[in-house]
C-alpha cells in the first residue's frame, strides 16, 4: 500500500516528541482556559492559577472534568476565551428545547480543524481529482461544513448537496461521476435501495470510497456497504465539542480510527470511578483540546464508550487508534445521524395541554432509515369531539417536536390510559431497531 500523509511530520511524530508537544500545548490551553469565567473559577478551586502549575502531562489529572451540563450552564459566553470580534464561526447544538451549548471558533481554530480533516482525507488514499459528494447536513451540524472545508483544502471537487432528496443524490452521483461520499451508513443503504426505482444500477456509478459517521454501526454493516457498492468504506468519529468530524478517522488499513493526539489529549476512563483505563478496555472517552483558541475544553467527558487499540498501526502513524463507539453512558439516542435526548421530547409534550403526561418514544427501522414515533394520550378533559381539532393537534405536536429535535417524527394519538405505565421509572423509550 502506498501511504500518503497530509502532515507527515506531525502524523509520524515519535512518542517522546509527541508527549513534549502535548505538554507545551496543554500549558497553552490551560492559559487560554483561564481567560474564561468558567475555567478561571474551576481551575483556581483545583489549585491551578496559571499554566506554570502544569509541569508534566500527568498534571492533567489535577484538572477537574468538564461535562455537557457545564457547557449548558455556560451558555452563551461562559467558555469564550477570546473577544467575540475574533470569532469567525459559531456552532450551537440543534433544537429548541433545553439550553443549547455553543462552540466558538477563531480563524485559526477553523484553519486547524480544516487541516485535521485534510489529514483524514489523505489518510484514506483520497486526493485531488476525486469527486466528493457531501451528503451530511450543512448548517449548525458540524458534519457537513467540517468535511467540506477539509475537502476543499485538499483540492477535491466538492458537491455540497447536504442530506436528503435521494433521487437527486443518485442523479448527481451519475452526472458528476462521484468517487467519494460522506454519509451516515443508514442513508447510504437507503440510497442503495432506491437505485432501481431511480432508473439506475451500481454499474452506472463510479463510486470508490465512502466516509461513514454520525451514528453507530457494526463491522458487518461496513462490509455489507462495501460489498453492495463495491467500494472501501472508512469510519469517522467526531463531536461538535471537539470541532466536528476530523477527531478520529480510519486510515487505509481500516483497523481503528487514529485520534490526532497533537490536537487532542485522549483519555478513556471508567465512567463510574473516573479512573483512567489502559488499552483494550472499554470506557468513556475524555478529550482535552490542545490547539483551540476560542473555546478550549479540558477533560471533556464525551459520554461515548470505546476502547483504545494496543500496538502500532502499519501506516506508521504514531497516533493511537480508537475502536468503534460501543455505547453511551447516558440515554442519548441517534436517529438518522441526529442526536436526540428523550427529555427534549418530554419537554414538548408537557407543554401541550390537550395531551396527557404519559407518552412513549418508539424507534423502528423503515427499510434502512430510522423512524421515530412519538405516542401520546388524548387528555380526556380537553377533548371536545372535534375531528378537525384532532388533526390540528397532531400537526401541532409534529411541528413542535420537529423544531425541538430536527427529526421528522410520526405522532400517534392514543386513548387515555392505553399506553403502558410502569412502576417506578416509566420505560419511555422502546428501541426496536436492529443494530446496524
Amino acid at each position, binding site marked *: 500500500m502506498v501511504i500518503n500523509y497530509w502532515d507527515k511530520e506531525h502524523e509520524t511524530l515519535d512518542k517522546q516528541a509527541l508527549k513534549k508537544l502535548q505538554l507545551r500545548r496543554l500549558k497553552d490551553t490551560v492559559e487560554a482556559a483561564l481567560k474564561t469565567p468558567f475555567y478561571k473559577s474551576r481551575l483556581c478551586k483545583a489549585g491551578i492559577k496559571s499554566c506554570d502549575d502544569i509541569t508534566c502531562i500527568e498534571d492533567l489529572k489535577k484538572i477537574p472534568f468538564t461535562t455537557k451540563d457545564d457547557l449548558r450552564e455556560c451558555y452563551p459566553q461562559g467558555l469564550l476565551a477570546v473577544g467575540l470580534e475574533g470569532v469567525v464561526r459559531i456552532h450551537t447544538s440543534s433544537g429548541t428545547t433545553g439550553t443549547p451549548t455553543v462552540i466558538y471558533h477563531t480563524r485559526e481554530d477553523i484553519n486547524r480543524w480544516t487541516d485535521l480533516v485534510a489529514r483524514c482525507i489523505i489518510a484514506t488514499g483520497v486526493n485531488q481529482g476525486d469527486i466528493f459528494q457531501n451528503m451530511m447536513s450543512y448548517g449548525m451540524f458540524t458534519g457537513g461544513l467540517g468535511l467540506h472545508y477539509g475537502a476543499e483544502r485538499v483540492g477535491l471537487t466538492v458537491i455540497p448537496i447536504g442530506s436528503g432528496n435521494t433521487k437527486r443524490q443518485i442523479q448527481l452521483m451519475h452526472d458528476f461521476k462521484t468517487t467519494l461520499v460522506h454519509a451516515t451508513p443508514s442513508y447510504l443503504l437507503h440510497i442503495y435501495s432506491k437505485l432501481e426505482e431511480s432508473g439506475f444500477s451500481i454499474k452506472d456509478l463510479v463510486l470508490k470510497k465512502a466516509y461513514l459517521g454520525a451514528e453507530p454501526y457494526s463491522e458487518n454493516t461496513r462490509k455489507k456497504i462495501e460489498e453492495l457498492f463495491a467500494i472501501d468504506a472508512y469510519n469517522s468519529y467526531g463531536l461538535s465539542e471537539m470541532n466536528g468530524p476530523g477527531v478520529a478517522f480510519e486510515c487505509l488499513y481500516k483497523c481503528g480510527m487514529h485520534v490526532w493526539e497533537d490536537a487532542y489529549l485522549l483519555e478513556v476512563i471508567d465512567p463510574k470511578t473516573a479512573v483512567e483505563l489502559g488499552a483494550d478496555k472499554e470506557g468513556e472517552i475524555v478529550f482535552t483540546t490542545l490547539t483551540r483558541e476560542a473555546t478550549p475544553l479540558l477533560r471533556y467527558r464525551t459520554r461515548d464508550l470505546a476502547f483504545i487499540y494496543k500496538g502500532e498501526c502499519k501506516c506508521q502513524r504514531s497516533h493511537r487508534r480508537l475502536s468503534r463507539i460501543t455505547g453511551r453512558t447516558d440515554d442519548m439516542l441517534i436517529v438518522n445521524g441526529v442526536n436526540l435526548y428523550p427529555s427534549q421530547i418530554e419537554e414538548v409534550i408537557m407543554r401541550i395541554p390537550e395531551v396527557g403526561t404519559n407518552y412513549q418514544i418508539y424507534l423502528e427501522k423503515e427499510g434502512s432509515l430510522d423512524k421515530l414515533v412519538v405516542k401520546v394520550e*388524548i*387528555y*380526556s378533559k380537553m*377533548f*371536545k*369531539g372535534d*375531528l*378537525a381539532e*384532532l*388533526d390540528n393537534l397532531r400537526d401541532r405536536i409534529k411541528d413542535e417536536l420537529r423544531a425541538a429535535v430536527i427529526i421528522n417524527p410520526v405522532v*400517534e*394519538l*392514543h*386513548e*387515555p*390510559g*392505553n399506553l403502558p405505565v410502569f412502576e417506578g421509572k416509566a420505560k419511555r423509550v422502546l428501541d426496536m431497531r436492529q443494530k446496524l
Partner: protein
Amino acid sequence: MPKQLSIFLENKPGRLESVTEILSKSGINVIAFTIQDRGDFGLMKLLVSKPDQAYLTLADKGFACALKEVLLISIKDKPGNLHKLTELLLKRKVNIVDAHGFVVAPDQEGICCLELKQAQDIKGFLTKEGFRVLDEEGLAEIYDH
C-alpha cells in the same frame, strides 16, 4: 338542542366492543352511530337514548368523550325529500361539518343528523318548509309513539 356523543377511539381490535359493552350494561339504547376514521384513530359518533348518562358513564371509565349539539331533522321517508332538504340548506348557506342519516320507520320517517360549523337559527325556516326539527326529547319520543 339534542346532543350527539363523540368518543375518541384508537383504530384497533376491541375498541368498538368496549364501548358497546358499557352502553349495553347501562341499558342505553343506541339509535344511530357512525365512525369518522383518521387511520390510526377515529371518532365514534352516537345518538343514544340517554346522552348525558352515556357521557358520564364512559368518561368515568376513562374514555375521551364529548357531547355536541346537533340538528336532528325529521324527513317523511319518500324519494325526493332528502334532496328537498339539501336544496334548502344550500339556499340558506348552512355550513355542515358532519352529517349522517337513518330511517326510523320505513315509508314514514327518516332522521337527518347534522353537526353545524356554527349554531344557526334555522329551526323556524325548516319548520316553515315542512320539516320537523327535533328537540332534546325528540329521539326518545320516536320510541314512545
